[in-house]
């Protein structure tokens, strides 16, 4: 398959149909329907705000900590949802794959795009919270766009890899679940990175090599408060700052190629 064909007209139509179908079906039969897209993150944020801001009192030295926290959670939720959607995408459509020949990567992309749209809705809610909290908005907030693009590419890369792996070994789903749990705590989402640095600066440096941690911290820096520790402040050498980007780049190549190589056998292995 030529790279130029990836988004030809037919594939775009198919992608759109799959994403739209996914959305239509998501809140099928629920009384509030699409409202849940907004209500769900709202309730989640309300709970987190209560727990972390009022009771645990973490991050008191970070201004606008609730929004800071929410943004991290929104980005992380996208990451887990996109990779999990990707993981299940191929095997959950086994019936289709055995009967029609169509570009398989479209299913993986559609799963991640659905998560992306979800994140868009969540970000609107974050925006509302930002206004309520009176977070000053500067042009820096536009940096969120390339940062989200980076996170999306990383999630897509893993989605490709996991989708193909899951066809071969159904253990992939369980392994990924455990991995995500560990990864969640190894990413500065609930706790400020400063807390880690207090214990061990080296550990903080390792943590920030992960593209997810890098994106979350950079996004907080750009959108919420400059009182956020980013990779650029942490590392003394510029090439270490680049490592997360290199990881993203390498994973999309590896994930894409691995998926492409295996997709020919999906119909018979599923």
């Amino acid at each position, binding site marked *: 398959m030529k790279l130029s064909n990836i988004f030809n*007209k*037919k594939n775009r*139509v*198919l992608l*759109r*149909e*799959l994403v739209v*179908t996914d959305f*239509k*079906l998501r809140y*099928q039969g629920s009384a509030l329907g699409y409202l849940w897209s907004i209500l769900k993150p709202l309730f989640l944020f309300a709970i987190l705000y209560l727990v972390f801001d009022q009771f645990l009192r973490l991050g008191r030295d970070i201004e606008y900590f609730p929004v800071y926290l929410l943004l991290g959670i929104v980005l992380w939720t996208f990451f887990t949802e996109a990779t999990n959607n990707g993981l299940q995408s191929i095997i959950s459509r086994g*019936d*289709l*794959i*055995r*009967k*029609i*020949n*169509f570009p398989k990567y479209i299913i993986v992309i559609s799963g991640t795009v659905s998560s992306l749209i979800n994140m868009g809705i969540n970000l609107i809610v974050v925006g509302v919270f930002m206004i309520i909290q009176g977070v000053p908005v500067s042009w820096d907030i536009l940096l969120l766009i390339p940062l989200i693009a980076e996170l999306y590419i990383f999630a897509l890369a893993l989605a490709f890899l996991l989708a193909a792996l899951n*066809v*071969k*070994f*159904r*253990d992939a789903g369980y392994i990924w679940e455990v991995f995500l749990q560990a990864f969640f705590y190894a990413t500065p989402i609930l706790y400020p990175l400063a807390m880690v640095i207090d214990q061990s600066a080296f550990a903080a440096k390792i943590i920030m090599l992960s593209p997810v941690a890098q994106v979350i911290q950079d996004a907080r820096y750009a959108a919420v408060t400059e009182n956020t520790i980013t990779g650029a402040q942490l590392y003394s050498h510029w090439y270490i700052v680049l490592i997360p980007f290199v990881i993203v780049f390498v994973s999309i190549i590896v994930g894409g190629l691995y998926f492409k190589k295996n997709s*020919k*056998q999906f*119909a*018979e*292995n599923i």
Partner: protein
Amino acid sequence: MADKQNIAVQVEHVTKSFKIPLEGSSGLKQKLINQLRGRKGYRTFTPLKDISFTINEGEFFGIVGKNGSGKSTLLKTIAGIYNPNEGAVNVNGSLVPFIELGVGFNPELTGRENVYLNGALLGFNHKEIEAMYDDIVEFAELSEFMEERLKNYSSGMQVRLAFSIAIKAQGDILLLDEVLAVGDAAFQQKCYKYFDSLKDKKKTVILVTHDMAAVSRFCDRALYIDEGEVSLIGSTRSVANKYLEDNYNRTPGATSEDDEVVEKPRATVKKLTVNATKFDIGDELKATIHYENPESIPLHFGFQLFGQDGSYVFGTNTNNNGLATSTKQKGSIEMKVKLDLVPGLYFITVATMDKGANGVYDYRTNIEKIIIRKSTEVGGVAFLDYEWDAK
């Protein structure tokens, strides 16, 4: 003639094999264990061995074979669902496969949404689907229901919608699996009518089936696949003859011995003997029912003939024909019948029946198969005495 035509589908030396996992289908643990023990953990199964053929544009091409002969694998390989291990399949134009009706239908979506989703999956863009949409709805006779969810459709309505999409989808090459030919008689008629129209329009069609009647009726040429290899490619007639003969030479299919016998019948059909198994049109079949009737029940006997597609061709019983019942403890009765039938494969069913021929003691379905050889090109069921007279 063939040289002048453009090639629609070219299959070149296609070999396809599968790895069938031996145990513990797709776990990581099993994989590791197998690796450690130096076992492969799978066996190789090769349903297609070096298959080559070409289909010309505008041809109605049949692919026939028994169950397990590899025809479904071949179909899926042509459709691009499977990738061949060796060789290549070249398709000229857009190929629309219908391996199953309504693939990807979602019960929670409306009829309209399902048409668009199904169309997109088949590789059509929005404009193309829009152009087909009205036709599809009209043919399915569902215009009032298109905004309703599919789950509220009756199963018949669902089939109609799926079938309409299959019919109205405007591809260059249509790949049809035999699933299209299942369903009730009216549905089958609709299918056949549709095949006729495709033939008239000179569409390139590949029909995969084990129903020789359909192949004889529609196909220009056919391929007979047997155990993964091309047994014969040629005229429909030569393929049909070879297929029927090969098919017959295998042990006869399931008799009622395979069925679960709940209670031993009081009067049993011991066996059926026939004077021959291959006939020409109009030959006489002599079928003898050998029975045992230890209780000396007054018995009548039934005889039925079924076509290959399960159609009921002919049947009668000794009660209807005014014969007296038999009370012999062991005996036989011969049925002589003139086979004025069109060529094909037929199945004989016989039964022992009670007085009045209302109840059945022993019913042996498809106890014997007979073939009527193809000597002339006719269609239908009955071979009527005919004559052309040009004036």
